[in-house]
């Protein structure tokens, strides 16, 4: 058990060191979601002057969505680090180590989730400072719930990225496949518009098989107290998704070979 924790920590530590050495990655991960917030949030909000459900301003509605989006993008692309490690040979160094494959997966998840959650927290600070999310709606419990949703969402999508990285071994195919996945995951998640009875049934059904839908719904529940499902339902679905994807990723990592 201590071996597993040490291994997770070791792999996490390496991811952190690599991230901190790359200034472009730091600027990119923080800058991208802020640009989204400025352009999509403000732009669409102004265009529609929309009040979701009659009372929630669009920019407030979309804030948890953009937090979810940040986590999705940052997490799922983390699988690319496995492909780089394979190309530079470092993956072999990890694979021959006497550590469980679960700890390798958890280490990668810990590393990428730290970065994803920190970036998402940056968005949170911005939306609070600019009064987009009213301070009155915040509570300690709500922030804790939000953090749990962030971590679970990140774990789910890092694991999804690792699964794809374990199956595919070149950068180009990985990026094509991830892009192919990210768009429907994002647009069906309810990040930008509410998933409600007003949508056609097929769109509504597709949204319900998108893990990010429950994650963002839960984030909205904990942050602005507005959601399709009760928080407990969102939490249960998000935990189940994380467990499923981590299990698959671990199984695939046990079969991965050095060449």
């Amino acid at each position: 058990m201590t071996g597993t924790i040490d291994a997770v920590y070791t792999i996490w530590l390496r991811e952190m060191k690599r991230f901190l050495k790359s200034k472009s990655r730091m600027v990119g991960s923080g800058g991208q979601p802020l640009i989204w917030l400025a352009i999509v949030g403000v732009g669409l909000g102004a265009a529609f002057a929309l009040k979701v459900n009659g009372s929630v301003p669009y920019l407030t509605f979309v804030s948890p969505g953009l937090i979810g989006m940040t986590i999705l993008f940052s997490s799922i692309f983390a699988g690319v680090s496995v492909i780089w490690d394979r190309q530079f040979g470092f993956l072999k160094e990890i694979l021959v180590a006497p550590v469980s494959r679960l700890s390798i997966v958890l280490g990668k998840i810990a590393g990428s989730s730290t970065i994803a959650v920190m970036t998402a927290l940056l968005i949170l600070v911005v939306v609070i400072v600019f009064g987009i999310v009213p301070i009155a709606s915040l509570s300690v419990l709500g922030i804790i719930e939000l953090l749990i949703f962030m971590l679970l969402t990140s774990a789910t999508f890092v694991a999804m990225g690792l699964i794809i990285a374990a199956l595919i071994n070149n950068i180009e195919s990985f990026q094509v496949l991830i892009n192919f996945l990210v768009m429907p995951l994002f647009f069906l998640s309810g990040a930008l518009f509410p998933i409600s009875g007003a949508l056609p049934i097929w769109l509504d059904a597709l949204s319900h098989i998108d893990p990010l839908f429950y994650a963002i719904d839960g984030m909205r529940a904990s942050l602005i107290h507005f959601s399709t499902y009760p928080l407990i339902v969102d939490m249960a679905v998000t935990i189940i998704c994380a467990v499923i994807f981590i299990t698959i990723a671990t199984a695939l990592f046990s079969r991965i070979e050095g060449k």
Partner: protein
Amino acid sequence: MNQGSGIQDAIVVNSLVKRFGSFTAVKGISFSVKAGEIFGLLGPNGAGKTTTISMMTTVLSHTSGTIKLFGVDALAAKDSARQMIGIVFQDPSLDDELTAWENLDFHARLYGVKEGKKEIIEKVLRLVELQDKADRQVKTFSGGMKRRLEIARGFIHHPKVLFLDEPTLGLDPQTRRNIWDYITKLNREQGLTIILTTHYLEEADSLCNRIAIIDHGKIIKSGTPDELKRSLGGDVVRIGVGRKTELMRLLKGKPFIISVKESDEGLEISAKDGSKAIPMITRIADTKGISISYATVKRPSLEDVFIHLTGRNIREEGADRESSWKKFRGR
């Protein structure tokens, strides 16, 4: 050196097979390595050396057969096996973004080295003379420095067996010599069992206690370097001649000749006494007006054994398969 029968077997490989689809890369290899031995796996590229080492180091799954490391089933109890082995892969396997120290620290942590970690890392860095470069990013290192760092990393966790897959490929002679010095020192001082593959047969000859020659996925010969050389049964006489086949036919069956083979420039003859054989060969050639451009005689080297057994020169074969820079450096 450690040839006594009382010494424990470090590694026992039995009927090991690896198939990739319809292609069988390793066709039932069996051998054993004694504790404290330096054991060489030699063979042309594509012979199955790296595939064999990859299975022994748990990098690659096997199709059938068994591998035991100090009595532990390496194919089942993978983590116990992993803890016992250190590996220097044929291709680089460092994190270029991290410093030398950070690479070694990562390794020490993954292998659960806690007590005296700092001292151990300092010690291995000194051993490969990289102590001054500890805080430099690995991407600033030369090929030789990276190799030395990988070797240092390979024995940080006090492995019982060190696997070295072409550890000196692409390095200059000076660096090569240094690396072998470190490796023999480890073997001598710490009793580390070492399994290596190399293209440099002279190095294998001087380093290895025992050698197995692999070709087409099978071990075709194994023994001490001396045993292998003696197995040729005599001296190697090389003669430069244009009409190879004709002369070969004339020489076959002559009592002073053990065997005759065609080589690139002429014939390669194994004879009981090389210096006496040359005048006799010249006389036979003269009777048919076959002109001989040169004749050399030498005690058989490992290279001769290799050519005799595989019909190929280890480096030529290597050059066909390796990328051009490796071909260039490998010579």
